[in-house]
């Protein structure tokens, strides 16, 4: 038994994978968007499983508050504020030196992602906002690449496997960008909820990468580990032939220019304006109650609300627009925006 065969022996002994499946896994390239809680778990799992290449994208750096649930990262990474994608890459190389890891420190926008898709075999969701998810969903459909949706907050989470041409897509399931104001920064998150999502994403990844398409899950999983609830919901009926992402005449709306979140530094004001891709009506009352309950200082009037988080003041308007004060850093402003409204 050579050393690579020994390394993956327990995975090859699993009949549905076997030596053939392992060879297939070893040829595959997986793109993971977001290297936070979900992305660190799935990237570790796939590096250990022996994929050929992982591409990791994240714009953020490691922060002390990440350590409670984001694997791969150490106290040293947080002290040195190492970029997440690079910190993850370093650890993954020590775990499996044969896996090629490409780390991209940057904003996962349409231009960047579209340029990466050419030889990608699987898209894995590790992001913290639906704007990026809808973008990944469009890319999955355009390039006919499976997309593993996953998300969680508190003890609650969900996972769904999107196979272009077979299952409904994220746009079929969720017609509009959902804004509920529940984020890991407002209602918290426990690490087991993360692992529950990545256990599902990981199993689906191994099925797809090893060529076991028949075993792919057709239901949408939703669970709450604290409430001891687990639902497995049939989703096929939502497949919509008129869907602009996956229907008969796709337009891939989130790949169109002008359809992205717009972020601009306001001239001379030390303020960044954030405008979401889809102008919708922010449920201001719900947000106020979420934020108050998260211990944030909240003020405002019927037209706008202001909130102070980590020393930064942000003002949200009913149409979804926000001003983030005290910064000229666009990535910092995006991060604060998503941490408050998702």
């Amino acid at each position, binding site marked *: 038994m050579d050393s690579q065969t020994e390394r993956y022996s327990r995975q090859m002994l699993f009949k549905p994978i076997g030596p053939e499946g392992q060879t297939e896994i070893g040829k595959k390239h997986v793109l993971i968007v*977001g290297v*936070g*809680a*979900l*992305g660190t778990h799935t990237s570790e799992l796939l590096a250990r499983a022996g994929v050929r290449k992982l591409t990791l994208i994240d714009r953020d750096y490691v922060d002390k508050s990440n350590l409670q649930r984001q694997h791969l990262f150490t106290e040293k990474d947080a002290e040195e504020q190492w970029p997440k994608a690079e910190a993850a890459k370093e650890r993954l190389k020590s775990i499996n030196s044969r896996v090629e890891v490409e780390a991209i420190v940057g904003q996962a926008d349409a231009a960047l992602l579209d340029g990466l898709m050419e030889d990608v075999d699987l898209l894995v*969701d*590790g*992001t*913290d*906002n*639906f704007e990026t998810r809808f973008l990944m969903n469009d890319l999955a459909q355009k390039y006919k690449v499976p997309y593993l949706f*996953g*998300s*969680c*907050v*508190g003890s*609650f*989470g*969900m996972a769904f496997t999107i196979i272009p041409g077979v299952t409904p897509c994220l746009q079929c*399931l*969720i*017609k*509009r*960008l*959902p*804004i*509920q*104001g*529940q*984020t*890991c920064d407002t*209602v918290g*998150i426990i690490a087991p909820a993360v692992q529950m999502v990545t256990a599902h994403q990981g199993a689906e990844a191994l099925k797809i990468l090893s060529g076991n398409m028949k075993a792919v899950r057709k239901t*949408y999983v*939703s669970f*709450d580990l604290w*409430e001891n*609830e687990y*639902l*497995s*919901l*049939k*989703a096929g*009926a*939502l497949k919509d032939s008129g869907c602009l992402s996956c229907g008969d005449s796709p337009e891939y709306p989130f790949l169109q220019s002008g359809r992205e979140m717009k972020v601009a530094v306001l001239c001379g004001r030390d303020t960044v304006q954030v405008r979401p891709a889809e102008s*919708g009506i922010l*449920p201001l*009352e*719900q947000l106020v109650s*979420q934020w108050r309950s998260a211990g944030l200082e909240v003020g405002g009037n019927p037209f706008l609300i202001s909130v102070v988080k980590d020393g930064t003041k942000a003002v949200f308007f009913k149409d979804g627009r926000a001003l983030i004060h005290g910064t000229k850093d666009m990535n910092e402003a995006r991060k604060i925006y*998503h941490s408050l409204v*998702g």
Partner: protein
Amino acid sequence: MNKIMLFAQLKEDAGKSAIETKAAGKTVGELRDFLEKETPLGNLDGIMIAVNEEFVKDDWIIEEKDVIALIPPVSGG
């Protein structure tokens, strides 16, 4: 009567994990409007609705004893 199971923040909004209501005959879309107006659940835009463990479209007609689940897609990751 129909049981409506609530998840994540909807539990908190309602102060309980399920609501009982008479929804038979209503479409899923009509139920959504009704819940937005008559309960503390507030805006249900983007909330996914399953009937008897299956997601259905807004024109699906609910029957007596169907169990409904409201699943809010959350954004964390």
